[in-house]
């Protein structure tokens, strides 16, 4: 069933990202990996919601939030206000979440994304600071049904980033989420470790007749933590809503969950209706008044951001859009590429990029290593690629040399020397190999002479084999052509 073009989707995204701090948002409890840590080992009276305690804001969390907001080109509020969002749920020990409501930290930004239709700026409505909740586990045991509460995650700093409803396709939604993840990692705000739930995405989706200016009724899909689930659930929801409208039915405003196994969205009982959160300014915290000099300092210290780097890699280094995208997605990879190029500025950037996205990524995937963990430094890779470019070793030899380098940490020159892999370009040696192959395979030579030209390719392979892959292929090709031509001429004469 394809979506007919008569309906258009309008999508906005809310993303919750945990900030990478040592301690929690309002207390000094350590931030631990709540997917592996023993339960309730990082909890104190403040984050447990005991009476008589007071919150104190973590400076680093504010700094990271500002880095993200500035990277998203937002206007920073000189004064922002924390508020209580009230609801009762066992993962929320205080009975309220400290968040920001009417006066968030930042507003009116934008993030550039790159999709098949080109470049697009997604407007950011607001960025605000809040705290995460605890973790609930449902248990069915001995005929009893209950829940267990782990508060390690309660009070971990959380950044909420809300877009305007500027997205229209599952592809755009995915591109935005990936670009945001990349940006969060660039500025050091979030690990991007999606499986650990450190970045959770909530799309709200509505459809309307194409060309209409009015917005349709929207639904919200809660708590997605993979790009695949995000893309699939949005696609499903667009089709479902379009189908309802086509049949003359109405879309019901509701909160949905995504059933990954069945590939459908399902209605969820919402925790509260929005207007019943009874927000009010947090009386325990004065407004957050920012020193403009501090904000400017943070702005100046921002690294080059992914979108700018993506453009520069294409313009300055002549990389393809694909290579630029793949290299830029993670800052350490982009840094690696530039360090390798700096070590050997004369190398063709494309070739260097292909070695990274091909061979290096292959190794990193197989052995589950990051680019910071591999044993081949940027300059060492550049040396290897330099040897290919100069013809010292051929492409295939270089691949096995690189494998050895990744294994042992040795340099390319060392590996080539130890294994005697240097490419043979010596004319006399190669001609000797060619002659031997021709002498050993009279039948094939005969069939070549009778017009079966493809045999030449087979003969080439035999020469390369004889030379254990070290023969310079171009020299072999030329020598072989010459010899065959000579035989042909002596034959016809």
């Amino acid at each position, binding site marked *: 069933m394809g979506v007919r073009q008569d309906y258009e989707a309008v999508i906005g995204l809310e993303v919750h990202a945990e900030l990478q701090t040592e301690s929690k948002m309002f207390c000094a409890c350590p931030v631990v990996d709540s997917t592996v840590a023993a*339960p309730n080992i990082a909890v104190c009276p403040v984050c447990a919601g005991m009476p008589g305690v007071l919150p104190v804001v973590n400076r680093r969390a504010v700094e990271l939030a500002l880095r993200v907001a500035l990277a998203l080109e937002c206007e920073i509020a000189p004064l922002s206000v924390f508020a209580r969002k009230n609801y009762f749920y*066992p993962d929320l020990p205080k009975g309220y979440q400290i968040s920001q409501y009417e006066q968030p930290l930042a507003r009116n930004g934008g993030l550039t994304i790159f999709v098949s239709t080109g470049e697009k700026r997604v407007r950011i409505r607001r960025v605000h600071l809040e705290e995460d909740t605890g973790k609930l586990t*449902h248990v069915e045991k001995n005929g009893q049904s209950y829940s267990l509460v782990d*508060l390690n995650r309660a009070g971990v700093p959380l950044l909420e980033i809300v877009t305007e409803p500027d997205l229209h396709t599952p592809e755009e939604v995915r591109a935005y989420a990936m670009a945001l993840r990349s940006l969060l990692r660039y500025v050091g705000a979030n690990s991007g470790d999606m499986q650990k739930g450190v970045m959770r995405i909530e799309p709200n989706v509505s459809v309307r007749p194409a060309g209409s200016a009015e917005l349709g009724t929207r639904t919200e899909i809660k708590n997605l933590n993979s790009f695949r689930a995000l893309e699939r659930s949005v696609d499903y929801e667009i089709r479902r809503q379009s189908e309802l409208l086509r049949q003359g039915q109405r879309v019901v405003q509701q909160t949905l969950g995504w059933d990954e196994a069945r590939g459908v969205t399902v209605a969820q009982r919402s925790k509260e209706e929005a207007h019943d959160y009874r927000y009010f*300014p947090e009386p325990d915290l004065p407004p957050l008044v920012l020193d403009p000099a501090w904000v400017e300092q943070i702005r100046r210290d921002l690294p080059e951001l992914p979108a700018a780097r993506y453009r520069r890699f294409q313009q300055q280094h002549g990389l393809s859009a694909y290579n630029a995208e793949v290299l830029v997605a993670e800052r350490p990879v982009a840094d690696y590429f530039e360090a390798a190029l700096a070590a050997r500025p004369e190398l063709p950037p494309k070739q260097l990029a292909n070695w990274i996205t091909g061979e290096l990524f292959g190794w990193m995937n197989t052995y589950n290593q990051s680019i910071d963990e591999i044993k081949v430094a940027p300059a060492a890779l550049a040396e290897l690629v330099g040897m290919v470019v100069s013809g010292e070793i051929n492409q295939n030899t270089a691949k096995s040399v690189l494998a050895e380098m990744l294994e042992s940490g040795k340099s390319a020159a060392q590996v080539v020397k130890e294994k005697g892999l240097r490419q043979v370009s010596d004319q006399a040696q190669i001609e000797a190999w060619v002659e031997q192959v021709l002498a050993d395979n009279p039948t094939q030579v005969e069939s070549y002479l009778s017009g079966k030209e493809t045999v030449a390719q087979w003969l080439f392979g035999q020469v390369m084999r004889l030379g254990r892959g070290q023969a310079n292929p171009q020299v072999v090709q030329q020598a072989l052509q010459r010899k065959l031509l000579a035989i042909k001429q002596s034959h016809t004469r």
Partner: protein
Amino acid sequence: MTLTLQEVEHIANLARLELSPAELALYREQLSAILDHFSRLQQLDTSGVLPYSEARQESMPLRPDQARPGLSTEALLKNAPAAEDDQFRVPPVLD
């Protein structure tokens, strides 16, 4: 200003409280009295006064990002009505 019984029920529901009819009537009276008190405050002319949250222009003290241990798990769970596997045990919650 008197709250309706439905409003009191709604507020009780938000607080996850199950109230008897007698309690509903009692809290209706008490909550209404509190609202009456605040509506008296509402009559004050505050047109020249900044809201509390903005009036406090001193900048908020921020804490350096240094972690230190909190409570032991044992101490944390000591007063919990029910605990299991180092966690609080509560009535079932289904998302």
